[in-house]
């Protein structure tokens, strides 16, 4: 009777140990599977997004709906000066007198790392404009270049540059895109 009890107790202990270890391993695998499924789900979504983006970009390339790049110099200071002059000249052609402040070029955080794009922050303060149409024409012209307007104010002081119309924007420079 004692031997039987010992065998039963031993077996129960062994079974419980096996169950404990087995269930622990199963739970660990289930957690890994759940995490991997989520990871696969995210990757699938990302892949789908990339596919759609690629299709869209390919279509854009095929249809020629691509922005113009402003020529840049190798030297950053020269490039900065060149950029300021270009903007001023651009505004002048539209009949607008403006003050332009161009900052140093830096790597853009608006795009994923897969594409190497840098940005040139700048501020434009237009001292006067004759009509609303002139203003809208300016905004329309901006659309031909990789300008990303961040703040636009008329009569406000949110952008630190003198002028009635003040614009804070970024110019996106794509290597080899000019």
């Amino acid at each position: 009777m004692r031997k039987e009890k010992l065998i039963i107790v031993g077996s129960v202990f062994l079974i419980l140990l096996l169950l404990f270890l087995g269930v622990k391993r199963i739970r660990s695998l289930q957690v890994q599977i759940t995490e991997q499924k989520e990871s696969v789900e995210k990757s699938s979504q990302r892949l789908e997004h990339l596919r759609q983006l690629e299709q869209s970009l390919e279509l854009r390339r095929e249809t020629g709906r691509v922005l113009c790049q402003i020529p840049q110099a190798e030297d950053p200071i020269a490039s900065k000066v060149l950029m300021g002059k270009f903007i001023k000249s651009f505004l002048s052609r539209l009949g607008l007198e403006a003050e332009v402040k161009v900052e140093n070029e830096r790597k853009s955080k608006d795009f994923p790392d897969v594409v190497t794009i840098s940005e040139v922050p700048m501020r434009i303060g237009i001292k006067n404009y004759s009509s609303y149409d002139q203003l809208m024409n300016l905004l329309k012209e901006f659309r031909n270049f990789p300008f990303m307007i961040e703040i636009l104010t008329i009569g406000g002081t949110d952008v630190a540059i003198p002028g009635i119309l003040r614009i804070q924007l970024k110019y996106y420079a794509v290597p080899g895109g000019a």
Partner: protein
Amino acid sequence: MILCIDFASKKIKIAGFKREKGSLKLIESLELSTSDPEAAFGEYLNRISKEIDEIRVSGALESTFHRIFTIPDLKKKVFTQALEAEVTKAFGKEHQFKYRDLGEVPGPGNKINRKIMTAGIKRSALEALSQMFADSPIKPSMFTTYPASLHALARKLQLLTQEPLAFLELDSPTTRIVIFKEDEIRVAREVNVIPEEKDPDRSALAKDIYRTLLFYTETYPNEMVTRLVLAGNSSSSKTANILAEKTGAEIVPFSPETIAQTEGETQDVPPACLSLALLDPGHFDFAFVPLSVQRKTKIRKTVTLSFSVTLGIILILALAVSRLSMNLKNLNVYQGGIQGEIRMKEDRLKELGLEFVSHSIETSQPPWSEILLETAAVAPSGVVFESFVLKKLKNRWQGEIVGLADGSDEISSLLLVEKVQNNFNKSPLFTQVRLVEKELQGHKVEFKIGYQLDM
């Protein structure tokens, strides 16, 4: 071969049978009656162990009992306890016993009793018998008592009727007498026999047997044993005639050849061995198992069960783990495939930088011209906008307009402010329009409206 062994008090009778087409065939038969029969038996067992399929054993009569009890018809557990109490009262606690229910008998009043045939064997004797097979590779499948096994033979020979029947195995130096009536074993005795040289007319033997028959008549009044079955080495026709004459009973010859075939020369068939060969161990009520064997069997069963359960759990867990591991592996492979494709797409996107920028600007910049036109349109006559701001904050375009409402009086100015707010609300371009502040300046009202672009 089924090896059937009958342990008589001073002899060991052995017979080997084979089942052929439903009938028994005697292969060999022998008696061990040397000074040390147990040693000789051990040697014999080792010699033929390879030929043995099964061993059946009947124990010596001296350490057994057979008694009929009448027990009230109770529930099984209580009934077993009552029977155990009766057996203990009659024979003490040192016996292992088995029973057979012989049916209902009327009890006192309207109560019903049950007639129970019991057969017991001393635990020590049973253990000693079991110990004799300790070195044998094949252990006995069944131990029983001599009368219990003999009863099966008598039934097979259709000798059991309502008339009592005495089965005599005449042998030297002892003779065994068992008296049956139907399914009851009523008397079982073993008497010493005076050798035939000293008792030529067998009168001493006849006297001993007659005494047993008298004992039966005294125990069961109005009943007489009228039939004697004679078996054994000493059952000559001379002895049969003497016994018939002395007891007045009918002598029924023992004919084992009707049940078991013998091979070659005529061999003696020990009746107890033949009886053992006839039994079905699975359905025999008086099959004993020594306690030590029961314990070993129980331990073996417990070990087997524990091992099976443990193995089963291991298998289930292993299956579950392997299945989950396989799933995880497949997911890893699938994920690897997706990651590879993503890398390919990203490489391709590197070549489409300018297109990417164009796409990004197109999808994230608001329609500036429409916004300026819409802003101008929401201002009714009498309202002047002093400043306009639209900026991107956390992927949302938020705007603020500061203006001055110049109505004919304060109420008109306030209504103008309300109208501006309503116009903003109605516009499909603006959402979450709220009046941030308003302040009376004479009859004019200066106000600030906040909004978001609905992109």
